[in-house]
């Protein structure tokens, strides 16, 4: 099924439609520029259905325009009474049967693809990641690997990664448009899906189910690196020393402030399963702060002083002791040094 869909797609490429679409959106975010097999399957179906729709629309518009041009009432014809036609069996049959055929053409690949994407048979041997949605951040637990991360998820390129997803609060939806379609993250059950990236890259992920005020700020990243780099990352992450001293007095001060100010109650460093807040083990390598902001020191300080301004309704606000600007700055210094792995988003090429 994939093969002929693929051929169909290249055919359309020529007709320019796909070209037009390919111009749409930002690389690594847009569903028009697929970087993984699931996104490709989706796009193929999108293009197939679009082609059918364009055909239908052209037919409808053709008749419509003819009607409007030919059958407008002309001057002096105000009293003309057209023939009162009751119907026409042949015509009516035609416009019943043709849509049936068109729908079938779409239905068959839809059903095949649906089962294809639901095929989780590789999960046993494959890499399994437990994905947890929280208001308003994501947590990733690499099952059987003793690795916990938040916000940024590393995966090896060209490998399906099996996700087991659940939420701790309300419904979220896990969506990385350029790699795969979305799947809801529910509080009452574990949903499974797999994702696979065909190229290295930092792929933008978004929460697609309304989950509260900061729903639009619940972004995350999927970082696809080569298999070797991934293995390296895994071993680095497994050997993190949560107590490691940062460099410089300010940062060391920050580290003790971090311990004293109950930050650790919510934020784990290392593979501790505590996940009331994002795991900060590799915070220094994060592509973003809290999912959406540039992780500059200034921003981190702003966050620590007033998280509410950055993410309305987040669950950190008001739940930690108030910090002075100085304290915040030392903590930021410390946090930015949390770079346990040689592998960083830079290795993914972006």
């Amino acid at each position, binding site marked *: 099924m994939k093969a002929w869909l693929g051929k169909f797609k290249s055919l359309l490429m020529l007709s320019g439609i796909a070209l037009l679409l390919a111009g*749409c*959106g930002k690389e690594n*975010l*847009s*569903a*028009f520029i697929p970087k993984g097999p699931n*996104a490709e*399957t*989706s796009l193929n179906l999108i293009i197939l*259905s679009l082609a*059918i*729709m364009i055909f239908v*629309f052209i037919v*409808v*518009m053709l*008749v*419509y325009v003819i*009607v*409007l041009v030919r*059958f*407008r009432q002309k001057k002096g014809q105000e009293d003309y*009474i057209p*023939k009162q*036609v009751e*119907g*026409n069996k042949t015509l*009516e049959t035609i416009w*019943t049967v043709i*849509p049936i055929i068109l*729908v079938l053409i*779409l*239905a068959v690949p*839809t*059903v095949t*693809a*649906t*089962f294809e994407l*639901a095929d989780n048979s590789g999960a046993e041997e494959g890499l399994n990641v437990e994905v947890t949605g929280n208001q308003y951040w994501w947590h990733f637990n690499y099952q059987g690997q003793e690795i916990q991360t938040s916000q940024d998820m590393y995966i090896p390129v060209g490998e399906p990664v099996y996700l087991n997803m659940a939420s701790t*609060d*309300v419904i979220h*939806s896990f*969506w990385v*448009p350029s790699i795969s*379609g*979305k799947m*809801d993250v*529910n*509080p*009452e059950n574990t949903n499974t899906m797999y994702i696979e990236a065909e190229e290295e890259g930092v792929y933008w992920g*978004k929460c*697609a*189910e*309304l989950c509260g*005020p900061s*729903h*639009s*700020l619940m972004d995350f990243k999927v970082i696809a690196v080569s298999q070797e780099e991934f293995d390296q990352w895994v071993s680095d992450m497994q050997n993190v020393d949560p107590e490691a001293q940062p460099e410089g007095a300010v940062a060391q001060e920050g580290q003790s402030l971090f311990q004293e100010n109950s930050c650790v109650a919510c934020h784990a460093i290392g593979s501790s399963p505590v996940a009331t807040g994002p795991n900060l083990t590799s915070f220094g390598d994060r592509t973003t702060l809290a999912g*959406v902001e540039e992780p500059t020191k200034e921003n981190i300080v702003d966050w620590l002083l007033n998280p509410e301004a950055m993410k*309305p*309704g987040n669950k950190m606000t008001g739940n930690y002791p108030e910090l002075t600007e100085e304290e915040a700055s030392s903590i930021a210094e410390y946090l930015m040094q949390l770079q346990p792995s040689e592998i960083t988003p830079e290795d993914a090429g972006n």
Partner: protein
Amino acid sequence: MSSAATQKRGFGAMLWDYLTTVDHKKIGILYLIGGGFFFLLGGLEAMIIRIQLLVPENDFISAGLYNEMITMHGTTMIFLAAMPLLLGLMNVIMPLQIGARDVAFPFLNSLGFWLFFLGGILLNCSWFLGGAPDAGWTSYAPLSVQSPGHGVDFYVMGLQLSGAGTLIGGINFLVTIVTMRAPGMTYMRMPLFTWTTFITSILILFAFPALTVGLFLLMFDRMMGAAFFDVALGGNAIIWQHLFWIFGHPEVYILILPAFGVFSEILPTFSKKRLFGYTAMVFATILIAFLGFMVWAHHMFTVGLGPVANAIFAIATMAIAIPTGIKIFNWLATMWGGSIRINSAMLWALAFVPTFTIGGMTGVMLASTVADYQYHDTYFVVAHFHYVIVGGVVFGILAALHYWWPKIFGRILNEAMGKIAFWLFFIGFHLTFFVQHFLGLMGMPRRYWVFLEGQGLDTGNLVSSIGAFLMGIGGLIFLINIIYSSVKGEKASADPWDGRTLEWATASPPVHYNFKQLPLVRGLDPLWIEKMEGKGKITPAEPLDEIHMPNGSILPLIMTIGFFIASFGFIYQTDHKAWLIAIYVGMAIALGAMLTRSLKDDHGYHISKEELEREAE
């Protein structure tokens, strides 16, 4: 707005008249006023949404307020604007089309209206009482259960009231159509608008109870500590989604079918041709309604129902394209060979065809499960449903308003203004929503308070917002047209458009008993038949005799006020038990009104034969 006689009686008397009326035409007008008011409100909310999304990372309104805005926009537009406007049109027109003097249950008709209206007011009270609901018009649990404040409580109680009103309205229309058709008006001679009213009412009857139950569960969870959606106590939030969509999908056909009915009246009239394939049109309507019950899970493709369920629902959903296609082509064939006159009513109907086709086709694209994994909860979906809802339902309502305005109010809407409003709205509409298809696939989920800079989403959103402002201006001009025409508009004759159906056989606006003598129907398009046979007038089916009419009553309003007060009690008793008093008082008022109704015989009154004869033609 109504006849000169009422205006002379002074404002107080007229107000009392409308508060107590059981006349289907006046209730219809009340629905139009109420629905129009909420449409304006929903439109205003839409403008605020589009201002917020004008530029990236805008902070015109806060995140919390944005969520309240979209929730109220969606809820208001669907439940308080589109549906009531349609119910209003049905109320005025359907009894006229079947040659009846009133509806089956005039008292309940009035009750239905007041429940809708006060339910809507209740919902909007939330703006002033600590914040509107903010969990989306779909109010998915557990977000809706956890939402702080009383916003969602207002959603629950407001929709419960107005939903009850709609259900009553549906049963009323059903019985009316079954028992009160004029002699000779067989089912297969009913105008399409009456048919769609009939089928829509069936949908209401079977779809709304699911919402009622869903709302009760949410109410119990929020206000009484039940655990339906509380995962910790074994609850299951997916139940809400099923109940909501078992109601919700038929709901969208509740909206579109009457609009289909409207177009099936307007296109033949202004093409001077009978509807092509009448029988097929009727059966397509029935088929759409039937299939409409079996597709709800297409809103839940990403919930994780598994591939079998997803595949079944995908195919069932696509099947709806077939009966809908039959309709589109039959409309085209109706115009083919006709003699088409274009005025504002017809313009809206003509604009509907391509617009709705696009919306319907994106619907079929959405039905393709794996593709929907990408579309779902993005602006692609927003684009889809505004194409079908605005391009189908709103265009339909506007077409119907221009078409039936003379019949309802006795004056013709201004043509020039009608056309300007149309073009602004039409162009604005496509600007607003066409780009949204692309925004969605480019990675913009819906219900996003802000979109970030540098993600390639800026231009699209800007264009979309500009389009929305054009729609706003178009809407404003339509409003001015209404005011202008009700003062200065051209007086309408009984049959200004050379109509085909029975409503054009009585005066504009019709006398309160509609027809002095019930008409005799001799075929489809009865008035047209008589015109073609040179009579131009409907043959009466009975000798002139006294007419039995129902009495007006203030009880429906009082009953509803009782429920209204009790709703506040339910909402606030979680804060303070003293509010239980409001429940008791409110319920006592409502039950007292019901008791009064059942203890006091109400046999209506008769208009004597002499009186009828005196009212000369």
